[in-house]
């Protein structure tokens, strides 16, 4: 995905916000559970997003994934709470 560093950064932030909003379960964790945060969990969520929208599952931020992220949509998470 050829892009300037700045665009890449913006896209990354967009993706991060998107994954938090639509691919993160709210309040689903029991007290004491350790939740992994960081790149691995993000890759997992990107894969989940790509699988949901029928995209090629790469776990990477590519153009088709960005296209999906920029579409107007419903605010209900795709991973149901």
């Amino acid at each position, binding site marked *: 995905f050829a892009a300037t560093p700045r665009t890449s950064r913006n896209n990354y932030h967009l993706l991060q916000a998107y994954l938090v*909003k*639509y691919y993160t379960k*709210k309040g689903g964790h029991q007290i004491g559970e350790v939740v992994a945060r960081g790149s691995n969990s993000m890759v997992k969520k990107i894969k989940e997003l790509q699988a*949901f*929208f*029928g995209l090629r599952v790469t776990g990477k931020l590519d153009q088709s994934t960005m296209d*999906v992220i920029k*579409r*107007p*949509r*419903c*605010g*209900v998470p*795709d991973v*149901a*709470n």
Partner: protein
Amino acid sequence: YRLFPGEPKWKKNILTYRISKYTSSMTSADVDKAIEMALRAWSSAVPLNFVRINSGEADIMISFETGDHGDSYPFDGPRGTLAHAFAPGEGLGGDTHFDNAEKWTMGKNGFNLFTVAAHEFGHALGLAHSTDSSALMYPTYKYQNPYGFRLPKDDVKGIQALYGPRKTFPGKPTVPHTPPHSPSIPDLCDSSSSFDAVTMLGKELLFFKDRIFWRRQVHLMAGIRPSTITSSFPQLMSNVDAAYEVAERGTAYFFKGPHYWITRGFQIQGPPRTIYEFGFPRYVQRIDAAVYLRDTQKTLFFVGDEYYSYDERKRKMEKDYPKNTEEEFSGVNGQIDAAVELNGYIYFFSGPKTYKYDTEKEDVVSVLKSSSWIGC
């Protein structure tokens, strides 16, 4: 299609909705219309009925909100998130919010409210996002033409997995859910339609059609005037499917979907009850017509092309029913929309015709124009 975890669904068939906050980008009338059409997209597939209320807490509270609006799911300004809705349940359950920062329209210039509302009501009824890109429940926006909209197969499968299919009868289509204010008066003089229900109530005959009913003295044609159902029976709120009166008890019964209400005169007595108390099988979701026969003290209930007989003395459904209506009532053709007994005759309303049936001769003795009852 996908359901929410735990598969939450509504445990009742009549759901109330209320639009508590409007948007400035559309007229209120257009919002009402888009919402009503969006609800109808679902009620045409499953045995759910939506009734609008204008005050108090409805099952589905609808509002246009901006930014953080107190439900932990803030809106984000133009584009991005357009709306969200909560799965069935108490409190926030079923509630549907639209981002007021969007430009909402009835057409394509902006976001089509019908399209988004229909999607959101899928959530409010228990559907999660579908991975099928042709489904209404796919999460990203795709314009849908409100006129002639048909629920995609995936969504029909999903919603029927929760509520089962809607049983439809030929000649009695799904009742339109028009807003309660300023209802249009059906032009019965110039149409081929019939009445939804007809009953005696005291010394008057009542004729129901959509949200309107006409009152007339049995032997007088003068002074027949339409009025809204809500003005006399606020609890019924809109159309009724069937009605009958047991004059000896001074009690009348009004049916709407799987529920009925008891009245004494025009006073409704208590909350609605379910028609299954009469002994109907569960697959019966609504009654088309009902008539009480004074001599036998039995009430006939017409459902599709069959009828049931209910013994009012024993308060029990009779055995060996349902029976085929056309086979048992010689000369009566077509589905029965309404029925009433008058001067020893049963009048069967079927479309634009009323059959005057003589119970002794066991035959139709004349056929009238249905609209003639209200002076046409």
